C-alpha cells in the first residue's frame, strides 16, 4: 500500500506510525549518497587490487660502444676470421700487431677495398639482430642491417679517432700531396636598382658575355621579364617584399638586356641583379654606374659610390622628354632640359666646378636624382595618415584559452588555467586585440605626422573606450588597457563613429582610413544607413550586416575614407567583413588568434606606405624615356689587388632587430662592403656601423647632409661602407629610414650586406696515403648543385660532397683533401655553399708523390645502431 503523506496525518494520529513514516522519509534522503558511496568503494577496490604492472619485453642498445672496443682489443693476427687469414696469407696485411680496427683504418686510408671486405665479414659473423653500420669519416664501410638508416627513428652512435703512421719500407711508404687551384675566376658584377626606379617599363644593360644572372628586387606588382627580347616570363611579385629570380639562358656574347615590363606603371623600390660573365676578373680604377632604361615616366632616386680618392667624373644623359627633366647629385641641380633623344654630357670640369671641387666625395655614397621638373603631381608633399582603429568589444571577445593544457580542465576558465594544477596563462581574444592595437598604434605613430584614434564598440559605441585622433602613444595605450568585453555587435555604429570623428578632426587632404575588426556577426542596426539591400548575400535584406557594409560604402564613396576590415577568429562573419573592405576601398584580412598581431602590423604598414606615396608618379598620357646608355663615370685612386675577388651576401637582417651582422674572414682582405636598404616609399636616411673600440655607432651615411627636404634628394639602395670602418670577424650595421631629417624608423627586415674580399685561392693537402680522387657534389651560393669529377681522369666510384648538408671526403686522399681545402677557401660565410661559381675545367690539380717519408693517417670511426 502506498502511503500518501498528504492524507496520512489526517487519517492517523498514531505516534508509532508517524515515527516509522519519518524514518522512512529520512532514509529516502540517503539513496543517492548510498549509491555514490558504493560506487566509490568499487573504484577504490579497483585501484587497490589492480596494480600498475604490465608485461614488457625490451631491448637495451649498447652494441655501438662494444663494437669499437672489441675491434680495438683484438689483434688482426689473432682474429679467427677467414677474410683476415686470407689477407695475411696474401701479404695484404703486413703489420700483424695492429688491432682489427687499425687494420681496417689503414685499408680505408689507402682507399683499399679490403677495408669493406674485412669489416663486412666481421659484422656478418656477429649475426646481430640490430641494424649496425661501421663508418669512417661518415663514409659507410660495412653494415649489417635490415632497414635503411634513412628511415630510422632512433640512431645510437659511438665514435673513436684512430690514426697510424705509414712508415713501411715497401711500396706503401709513398705518400702523396696535392694542390688544387682555380686558374680562371669568372667576373661578376652587381647592377643595383634604386632607392626607386620608375615608373614604366625598365631595361637593364648587363653588358657582354653574361652566362648567369640572379636578382632580387621589390617590384610594384606583377611583371614580365625577358632577356634580349626573347619570350617573356610572368612573375607575380608582392609589393613591399623582395622578389628573387634566376636566369641562365637567353644570353648572348654581345650586350645583354633584361626587360621588366608591365601593363601597369611598373617601378622597382630597391634591388639588385648579380651577373656572372664568361670572362676573367679584372680590377680597375674607374667605375661606370649605368642608368636603368625607363619607358614611361622618368623618376629615379638612386646613388653612386666613390670607392677611392675621386680624380674625375663624367655624366652622360640620354633621354626623351617633352617636359623638363632635372638631374641632381647630392643637393646640387646640375642639369635641366627637355627634347627628343637628347644626348648630354656633364664634363669633369663642369662637375668639379659645381660640386665644390669634389670636396667630401671620396669613399662616399652620393645620392642622385633624375626626374621630371615642375610637375606638381610628381612631388606631392607627404600626406598625413589619420586612422581610427574600430575594435569589437562585444561579449564574445571574452572567450579565452589556457597556454598549457596538460588536463582538459585547464581550458575551463582563468582560475583553473592559472591554478596550481595547470599553472598556465589565460589569454582572451580581447587580450590579443589589445596587444594588436598597441602594435598598430606604435607602428602608425612611428612617424609623428600621423595620428591614431580609437573606437571601442559593442551594441553601441562606448565613448569611454574611444579616443580622438592623437599622436600621444601613452594616452592611446591607456585607453586600450581599459577595454573590457560585453554586449552585442554593432559594426555600423563603429564605422559611422569613425567617419564622424575623421570628418570633424581631419581634413580630406590627409590619408584617412578606418580599420574595423570584429570576431562575430553584426546584430545591431544603424538607422543612419536606412533600408539596406542584401549586401552580404545571406538572403536577408536590411540586416545588421548589410548596415555595416553600407556604412563602409558611405565612408568611401562620400568622404574618401578607406575602410580596412579584419575578421578575427572562426566565428567572424567573413562574408560581411570582406564586403566591408570591398566597398570601403580597403583590404580584407582574416585570421585566427595567432595571426591578429601580424595582421594589424600589415595594415599599419599598408597605411604608412599608402600615405607616403610621394616617390610614385601618378599621371596619365605623359610619356618620357631615359635610355640605358646613360651613365655616371668616376675615376679614382685605389690600390689594386692581384688576388681573386669573391663576393658573398649576409642573411637578411630579419624582423627581430633592425641590425645586420656579417663576418669578414681573417685570411682575406675586404675589397668592397655595402649594405642594401629596401626603403619602400621612404628614404634611406642614415647608416651606421658599430665601433667595437669606442663601443658606439659610427655614422657612415647621412642623407640629411644633402638637405632636409628628402623629396628633392636621391634615395640610395646600396650604401657602401668604407673599408676603414670594417674589421675581420663580426661587424654590425644599422639602417634607418625617414621622410625628413627627423622621425627616423628602422630599416627593412630584408636588408642585407653584400661584400667582396680579395683572397689567394688554392688548396693544399698534407702528405697522406693516396691520391686517387673522387666524384664531387658541390653546392653553390645560388642554391644550385654541380657534380664534378676531380681529377677528370678519375674512374672510381668514391662519392664526396661539399654542401650545406655537410662535407664528405676521404682526408687520407691528397686530391680530395686539397679540393676540400680549396672549397673551404671559396666558402666565405662557411655555410657549406661555395660563393664562387666555377666549372670543372677551371680547377687544376697537381699531385706529388713523396717517397720514403713516413706520414700519418687519421680518421674518425663511428659505429651506428639504428631502429
Amino acid at each position, binding site marked *: 500500500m502506498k502511503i500518501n503523506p498528504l492524507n496520512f496525518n489526517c487519517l492517523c494520529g498514531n505516534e508509532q506510525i508517524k515515527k516509522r513514516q519519518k524514518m522512512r522519509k529520512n532514509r529516502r534522503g540517503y539513496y543517492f549518497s548510498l549509491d555514490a558511496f558504493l560506487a566509490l568503494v568499487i573504484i577504490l577496490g579497483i585501484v587497490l587490487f589492480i596494480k600498475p604492472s604490465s608485461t614488457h619485453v625490451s631491448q637495451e642498445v649498447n652494441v655501438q660502444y662494444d663494437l669499437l672496443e672489441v675491434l680495438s682489443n683484438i689483434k688482426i693476427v689473432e682474429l679467427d676470421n677467414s677474410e683476415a687469414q686470407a689477407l695475411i696469407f696474401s701479404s695484404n696485411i703486413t703489420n700483424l700487431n695492429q688491432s682489427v680496427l687499425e687494420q681496417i683504418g689503414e685499408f680505408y686510408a689507402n682507399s683499399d677495398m679490403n677495408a669493406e671486405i674485412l669489416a663486412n665479414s666481421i659484422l656478418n659473423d656477429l649475426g646481430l639482430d*640490430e641494424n649496425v653500420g661501421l663508418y669512417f669519416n661518415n663514409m659507410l664501410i660495412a653494415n649489417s642491417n635490415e632497414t635503411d638508416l634513412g628511415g630510422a627513428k632512433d640512431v645510437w652512435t659511438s665514435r673513436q679517432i684512430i690514426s697510424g703512421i705509414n712508415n713501411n719500407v715497401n711500396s706503401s711508404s709513398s705518400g702523396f700531396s696535392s694542390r688544387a687551384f682555380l686558374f680562371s675566376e669568372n667576373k661578376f658584377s652587381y647592377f643595383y636598382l634604386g632607392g626607386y626606379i620608375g615608373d614604366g617599363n625598365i631595361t637593364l644593360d648587363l653588358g657582354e658575355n653574361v652566362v648567369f644572372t640572379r636578382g632580387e628586387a621589390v617590384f610594384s606588382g606583377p611583371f614580365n621579364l625577358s632577356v634580349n627580347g626573347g619570350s617573356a616570363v610572368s612573375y607575380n611579385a608582392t609589393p613591399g617584399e623582395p622578389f628573387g629570380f634566376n636566369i641562365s639562358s637567353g644570353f648572348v656574347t654581345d650586350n645583354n638586356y633584361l626587360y621588366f615590363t608591365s601593363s601597369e606603371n611598373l617601378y622597382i623600390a630597391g634591388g639588385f641583379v648579380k651577373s656572372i660573365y664568361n670572362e676573367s676578373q679584372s680590377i680597375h680604377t674607374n667605375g661606370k654606374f649605368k642608368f636603368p632604361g625607363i619607358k614611361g615616366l622618368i623618376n629615379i632616386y638612386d646613388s653612386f659610390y666613390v670607392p677611392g680618392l675621386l680624380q674625375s667624373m663624367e655624366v652622360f644623359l640620354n633621354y626623351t622628354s617633352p617636359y623638363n627633366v632635372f638631374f641632381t647629385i647630392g643637393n646640387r641641380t646640375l642639369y635641366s632640359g627637355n627634347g627628343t633623344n637628347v644626348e648630354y654630357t656633364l664634363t669633369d670640369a663642369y662637375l668639379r666646378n659645381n660640386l665644390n671641387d669634389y670636396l667630401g666625395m671620396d669613399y662616399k655614397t652620393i645620392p642622385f636624382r633624375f626626374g621630371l621638373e615642375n610637375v606638381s603631381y610628381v612631388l606631392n608633399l607627404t600626406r598625413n595618415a589619420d586612422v581610427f582603429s574600430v575594435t569589437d568589444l562585444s561579449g564574445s571577445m571574452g572567450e579565452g584559452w589556457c597556454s598549457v593544457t596538460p588536463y582538459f580542465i585547464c581550458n575551463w576558465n582563468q582560475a583553473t588555467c592559472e591554478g596550481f594544477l595547470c599553472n598556465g596563462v589565460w589569454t582572451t581574444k580581447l587580450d590579443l586585440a589589445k596587444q594588436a592595437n598597441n602594435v598598430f598604434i606604435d607602428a602608425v605613430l612611428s612617424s609623428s605626422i600621423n595620428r591614431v584614434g580609437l573606437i571601442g564598440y559593442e551594441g553601441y559605441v562606448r565613448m569611454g573606450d574611444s579616443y580622438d585622433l592623437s599622436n600621444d602613444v601613452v594616452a592611446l595605450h591607456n585607453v586600450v588597457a581599459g577595454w573590457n568585453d560585453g554586449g552585442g555587435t554593432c559594426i555600423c555604429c563603429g564605422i559611422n563613429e569613425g567617419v564622424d570623428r575623421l570628418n570633424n578632426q581631419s581634413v580630406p587632404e590627409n590619408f584617412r582610413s578606418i580599420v574595423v575588426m570584429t570576431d562575430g556577426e553584426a546584430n545591431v542596426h544603424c538607422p543612419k544607413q536606412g533600408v539596406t539591400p542584401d549586401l552580404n548575400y545571406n538572403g536577408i535584406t536590411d540586416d545588421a550586416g548589410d548596415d555595416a557594409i553600407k556604412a563602409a560604402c558611405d565612408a568611401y564613396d562620400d568622404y574618401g575614407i578607406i575602410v580596412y576590415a579584419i575578421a578575427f577568429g572562426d566565428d567572424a562573419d567573413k562574408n560581411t567583413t570582406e564586403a566591408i573592405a570591398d566597398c570601403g576601398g580597403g583590404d580584407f584580412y582574416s585570421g585566427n588568434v595567432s595571426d591578429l598581431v601580424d595582421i594589424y602590423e600589415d595594415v599599419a604598414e599598408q597605411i604608412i606606405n599608402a600615405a607616403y606615396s610621394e616617390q610614385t608618379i601618378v599621371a596619365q598620357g605623359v610619356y618620357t624615356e631615359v635610355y640605358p646608355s646613360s651613365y655616371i663615370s668616376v675615376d679614382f685612386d685605389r690600390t689594386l689587388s692581384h688576388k681573386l675577388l669573391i663576393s658573398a651576401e649576409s642573411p637578411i637582417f630579419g624582423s627581430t632587430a633592425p641590425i645586420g651582422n656579417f663576418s669578414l674572414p681573417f685570411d682575406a682582405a675586404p675589397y668592397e662592403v655595402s649594405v642594401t636598404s629596401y626603403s619602400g616609399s621612404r628614404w634611406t636616411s642614415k647608416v651606421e656601423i658599430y665601433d667595437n673600440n669606442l663601443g658606439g655607432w659610427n655614422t657612415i651615411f647621412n642623407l640629411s647632409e644633402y638637405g632636409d627636404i628628402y623629396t628633392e634628394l636621391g634615395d640610395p639602395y646600396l650604401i657602401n661602407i668604407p673599408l676603414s670602418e670594417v674589421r675581420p670577424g663580426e661587424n654590425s650595421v644599422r639602417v634607418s629610414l625617414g621622410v625628413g631629417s627627423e622621425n627616423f624608423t628602422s630599416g627593412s627586415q630584408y636588408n642585407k650586406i653584400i661584400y667582396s674580399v680579395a683572397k689567394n685561392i688554392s688548396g693544399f693537402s698534407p702528405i697522406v696515403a693516396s691520391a686517387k680522387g673522387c666524384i664531387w657534389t658541390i653546392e653553390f651560393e645560388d642554391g644550385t648543385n654541380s657534380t664534378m669529377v676531380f681529377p677528370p681522369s678519375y674512374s672510381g666510384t668514391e662519392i664526396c660532397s661539399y654542401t650545406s648538408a655537410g662535407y664528405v671526403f676521404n682526408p687520407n686522399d691528397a686530391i680530395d683533401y686539397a679540393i676540400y681545402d680549396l672549397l673551404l677557401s671559396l666558402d666565405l660565410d662557411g655555410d657549406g655553399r661555395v660563393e664562387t661559381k666555377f666549372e670543372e675545367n677551371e680547377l687544376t690539380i697537381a699531385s706529388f708523390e713523396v717517397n720514403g717519408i713516413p706520414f700519418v693517417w687519421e680518421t674518425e670511426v663511428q659505429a651506428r645502431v639504428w631502429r
Partner: protein
Amino acid sequence: MEQFLSIKKSKGKKGQIWSFDLVVATIIFLFGLLILFYYAINLSSQSKDKLDEFFYEGNLASELILSEVGVGILSDNKVNQTKLENFDALSDNDKRNFLGLNFNFYFSINNMKISGVPRNYVGILNTTEVDNLIQTTRLTIYENKPVKFQLFVWK
C-alpha cells in the same frame, strides 16, 4: 488552515533532504572520478620507472659479467674460459648476490662451451611465467672471435 501550513512545511523539508543527498552524492562521485583521473596519469609513469630500474640493473649486471674483476668473466678484454666456468659453477643465490640482482637472469655467448660441452646459456632459468623481461646485447671476444653476448633479466 494550520494543518495546510504544516503540510507545506513537510514538503519543503523533504525537498531539502533530497537536494542535500544529491549534493553529497555528487561530491562522492566526483571524488571517485578524481582518484581514477590521478591514477590513470600516474600509471604509465610508474610502469616506465619500473622498466628504467630494470634496465639499470640489467646494464649493471652485464658490466659486472663482462669485467675482469670479481665474478667477471674477462681477462685482457677477452672471455676467460676458466672464469666463465667458475661463474657457471656458482649457486643461483651466489650468482644473484654477486651481480646484485633481485631477479632471474641468464646470458648466452655464441658458440659457448662449458667444460668442452656446448652450452646455450649460463644463469638461472627456472621459471616459465615472465613479467617484464629485458634483453641486453653486448659484444665481446670469445675464442678470438668478436661474438654476441646477450643477457636476459626478468621478473
